[in-house]
Structures are given as C-alpha cells and as structure tokens.
C-alpha cells in the first residue's frame, strides 16, 4: 500500500529510555529503548514487532509520555513533545494521541459504568454539559459496534471482545489523530480478534487515524500494517514496507522471527525449519560500528558497513532476478 502524502506525523530521533535501579555499585541500568529513530506518516498503520522485553511497549508509552525519554527527541506534527512536562504539553499530547491497551479486563475500572469510563476524557477536556457528553458517548458506542443500552452497564457484564470495543471507544472519544494500540487483540479469542481488527481498520479510514500497532503476532501485524519495524533488545533492527519485509527479510533476527511463525498449513508446517539467531555469532561489531542504513528505498537495516554491502548485493541479485 502506498501512502500518497508522505507527511510525517511523528518523528522519533535517537530516542533512548533508560531504567535504573539501585545506587553505587548495585546500580543496574536497563537500556529499554536504545537509540531508536523512525518516522510515522500521516494515515498509515505502523507495526512494531519484537519479543517480550525488547522495548516495544516502552517505546509506545514514551511517545505518549507515560514515560519520559532519557535522551533523543520525539516530534509530533513538527512540535517537540519530548521536553519537560508542562500542563500545556500534557494537554497537547492528550488532545492528539490516545492509547488502546492489551488487557481489556485490567484496563477498565470495574466500578465505573461504560458511560463513566468513556466520558472521562471529555470531562478532563472541560466539556461540562452532561447531555452533550452523553450524546458523544452514544455516538462513539455506535461507531465501535455497541449500543446506547450498553452505556449504563459495568465492564464485567461484557465479553472480552466487547470490552476491547469499550477500550477503543474510550481512546477515540477525544478525537485523537494518532492512536497507539499496544497488543490490542492478543488477549482475545481468534474468532473475536478478526472482529476487532476489522473494526480498527474501519475506524482508521472513517476517522482518518494514524495507528502505531504494537504486537508480537507477526501474521496479524503483516495483515494490518503498511510498514513494519522490528525491535530487538531496545534497537530497531529492520524497518520496511510490510510486504517487502516479509518477502525479503535481511537482518538475521527478522529472518529467525519470521521462520518461527507457525502457519495454519499442515502440509508445510510439519517440515518447517526454524532459523535460530544468536547475536554473538551473527555479527562482528568489534571493528565497525553498526547503524540503521537504507539498503533499498524504504528498507532500513541495522548493520555495519560490511554487512551493508552483503545485504546490498543480495538485494541487487534479487532485483535482477525479479
């Protein structure tokens, strides 16, 4: 899928998030996000994949400023949103960005009705008239496939898929232009996953959203995203159009990740070979410093100079064969 207006809505540059604990000799430092740079364009779905602990959730949460970056910049529509948190900046971020969480049970307050959960964002934004708020809640409920009767109920009365719809309604009621969905379907049953993905796709086009989709299920990411970034231990190791990434993965970690996805096909699945990845033997970075390089237009790989040449050659032979 080609996005016409290649207008970046979000620019992340050399972002680092460090968590530290202890002091003195006991000090432990975790580089959760370690120098990540990328852009998200207006109207696209940007997928972010990686294993648990690779920093993908930290990255998402830092963009909406639930965490503060240690260094680096985040620009949203050209405005730097990585600086010190002020009342005005918080307002700006919450006006423009929203987040959909993974667990539809934990992320909804069990003591609040659906109406209260969804309208909280409106209250914060100073919409005082309860009737206006009610109308807006009814409106968004119908958009996410629920009815106005649902507004007075409590979260426990809903199934997992319906709860995730409530979570989506809560995120979208403030009319954000950019939504970060952190594993929105991984806690759902397979048959319900498809409903939620279709819903998010519909809302994306009717509301003109830009979505950052964080997940570990690579088939779902491939289906849902225009471009995909692969994270490994805090670093973005590969970034490309989703079709290109899955057809032609270059970084050894991406290759091992793709080879590990079980496919619903018993004929090929039983003989599938998985590629294992060990960073210690796969790269020799003692002489050359690795960085994110563009191997062909739009396809970036984290590699050293000699690896770059190898990837580039492979890319050329592929292109000449096609």
């Amino acid at each position: 899928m080609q996005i016409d207006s290649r207008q970046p809505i979000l620019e992340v540059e050399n972002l680092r998030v460090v968590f530290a604990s202890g002091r003195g000799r006991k000090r432990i430092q975790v580089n959760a996000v370690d120098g990540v740079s990328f852009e998200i364009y207006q109207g696209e779905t940007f997928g972010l994949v990686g294993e648990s602990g690779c920093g993908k959730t930290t990255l998402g949460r830092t963009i909406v400023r639930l965490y503060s970056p240690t260094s680096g910049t985040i620009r949203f529509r050209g405005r730097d949103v990585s600086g010190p948190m002020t009342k005005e900046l918080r307002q700006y971020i919450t006006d423009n960005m929203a987040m959909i969480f993974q667990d539809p049970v934990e992320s909804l307050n069990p003591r609040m009705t659906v109406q209260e959960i969804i309208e909280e964002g409106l209250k914060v934004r100073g919409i005082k008239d309860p009737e206006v708020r009610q109308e807006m809640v009814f409106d968004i409920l119908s958009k996410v496939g629920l009815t106005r009767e649902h507004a007075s109920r409590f979260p426990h009365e809903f199934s997992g898929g319906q709860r995730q719809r409530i979570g989506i309604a809560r995120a979208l009621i403030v009319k954000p232009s950019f939504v970060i969905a952190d594993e929105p379907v991984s806690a759902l049953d397979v048959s319900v996953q498809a409903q939620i993905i279709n819903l998010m796709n519909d809302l994306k086009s009717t509301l003109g959203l830009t979505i950052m989709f964080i997940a570990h299920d690579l088939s779902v990411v491939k289906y849902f995203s225009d471009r995909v970034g692969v994270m490994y231990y805090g670093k973005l190791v590969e970034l490309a159009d989703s079709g290109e990434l899955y057809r032609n993965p270059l970084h050894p970690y991406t290759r091992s990740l793709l080879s590990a996805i079980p496919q619903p096909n018993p004929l090929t699945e039983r003989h599938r070979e998985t590629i294992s990845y060990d960073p210690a033997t796969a790269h020799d970075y003692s002489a050359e410093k690795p960085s994110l390089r563009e191997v062909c237009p739009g396809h970036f790989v984290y590699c050293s100079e000699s690896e770059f040449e190898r990837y580039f050659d492979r890319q050329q032979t592929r292109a000449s064969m096609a």
Partner: protein
Amino acid sequence: MKTGESILTVDNLSVSFRTYSGIVKAVRGVSFELNKGETICIVGESGSGKSVTVKTIMGILPPSAVIESGTINYKGMDLTKLTEEEYARIRGKEIGLIFQDPLSSLNPLMKIGRQITEALLIDKEMSKREAREAAIELLGAVGIRDPEQRFEQYPFQFSGGMRQRVVIAIALARNPEVLICDEPTTALDVTVQARILNLINELKQKRQLSIIFITHDLGVVAHMADRVYVMYAGKIVEYGTAEDIFLEPAHPYARALLASVPDMETEGRLASIPGAPPNMLHPPTGDGFAPRNKYAMQIDFEEEPPMFRISDTHYAATWSLHPSAPEIPMPDVLRERIRRMKEGGANR
C-alpha cells in the same frame, strides 16, 4: 496416521459446574480417542470446554464440578471412578501434565532441582543421590545448559522458555506414557515457542509418548497434530486428521475459525465470526454454532446434529452434511487458501 491401539478413550463425557448463578454445562457429551504414539490437538476458544476435559482426565477438577456422565478408559480402568489414592498412582506416573503458565506452575521458593526430585522421590524407589542424578539428566534432556548449576537455582533465575523446559522435565520425571499439554506455549514468544514445540516433538519420538495438545493457535495445531478435534460450546463438532481439518473442513465453525485467521498472504477484509460464544449457563439447543452461522437452517436451532461420516478418519456434527441439506459454499478466503496449500505455495 498411525492406526495404533487406543491408549485413552473418552466416551460421552459431560461435566458441569455448580455456581451461584446456576449450572454451567462446560462439557456436553465429549468422546475421543488417543492412540499410542500419536498427537491429538483439541482446538477451541476459551469457554469451549477443552481445559475442563483434560482436567477431568487428570482428576483435578475443582469441588464445584460434577461429572454428569461418561467414562474415561485408560488401560482398562475408568478414571472417573477412581479414588483419590488410586489417582495418585496415575497422575504424573502414567499421565503427565504441562500447564500454560510456567511461572505459576513452579514454586518460587523452592530450588529447581528439588522441584524435580520431589516428583522422582514420590515412589520411594530412589535414593536422594540417584534422584539428583536423574534430575540433572532430565534437565539436560530438555535442553538446559549447565544442568548441574541450574539444579541449584530458583525459578526467577530462569527465562520464560527455560521455565517451561523445567515444567516439561517435571512432567516427564516419572516417565508417563501420556502427556497432556494445556496451551504450553501461549505465554511464550514465537521463537521460544518454536523451540519448545520442537522439544516436545523430539521427546515424543524418544520416549514413545502419546500427546493430547490443547491450543487455540491453528498454526501450532498444524505443526503438532496427527489428528485434530474441534470443540465448540462443550461439544466436539468435527474431528479428523490434520489434513482433513485444514484442507476439507466441514463444520461451519471449523470453516469460520480457519477463515478468520490471517496468514502471510491475507489481504482484504478479514472474515470475522459475528457474535460471541454462547453462555454455558444456558447452553444452546441444536447446533451450538447456529446463532453465529449465516447459513444456519431451521433444524440447526432445534435439533442436535449427529456425527456424520465424511471419510474413515473424518467426522463432523453438522446438519449441512445431511443428504437432503442444501450445498453450503466454503468461505472465499478459505477456498483460496486451501487451493494455495494444495499447490504448495501457501508458505515461503
């Protein structure tokens, strides 16, 4: 498929739970067969009764559960009639179990080694020293490096995949013939999952295990299963070899489930299943899937379909297989995918 002798036979099993809001009919007349040396997968969504079925086999149902009817035949014994004492000789020794969450199935305060030797010492046939050696060997067998040092460590010092290996080692400690895996890789990353699945397959070969594998991930089913049982609303709605189920699914639920999962080639709108699984407090009459099936006929809502025979290995409980039923088309996405699979081009 192996046409070996059956090692475990479940016949017409029904299990209900007594709750404050009423009786939940979790399993409603389930029958299946596990042959020696094969892996069967039970596929279904949460609430379909798959976990309750295996808990019944292991005799670890909570007190609120009642076995309404049915038998579980293992080596001539009916497991549903056993006393707790007799069960203690079956559990772990004859039938091993691996749970979903490797963190909560290990004791965080006990060293890994003791958690394995504990299982070995139950039978009082080994000295502590022998048990230690056997445990270290087991740790090595499940692919844990430096087993001697790892023996002295606590669960928190292990990663998720390594913990699941330890759980597998414990399950295999008493050399069971049947291994039940209840979503053993759901909590793990894909690369780790691939390694654990390969490990289970390897151990199956080496130890001649018969495996009941429970999962909702159809990719995992395709990787593991010799035969597949599809469960919906407490019943088995279709079963057959993996090829039968993936290439010629007959029950509307099996078809819808397969069609709703995106694979690497999926484009366009996903074929989602409308609605949600039924509430088992009020189990549906007729075909449980009928309310979510756009091709449902009147009879689907009224009368429960019997198992129709499709081939020697493949059976499905749906009225659409009745000779006088109209032909129901396969969902487009699925027809297309099956065509690709048969041509061998569905994967890279």
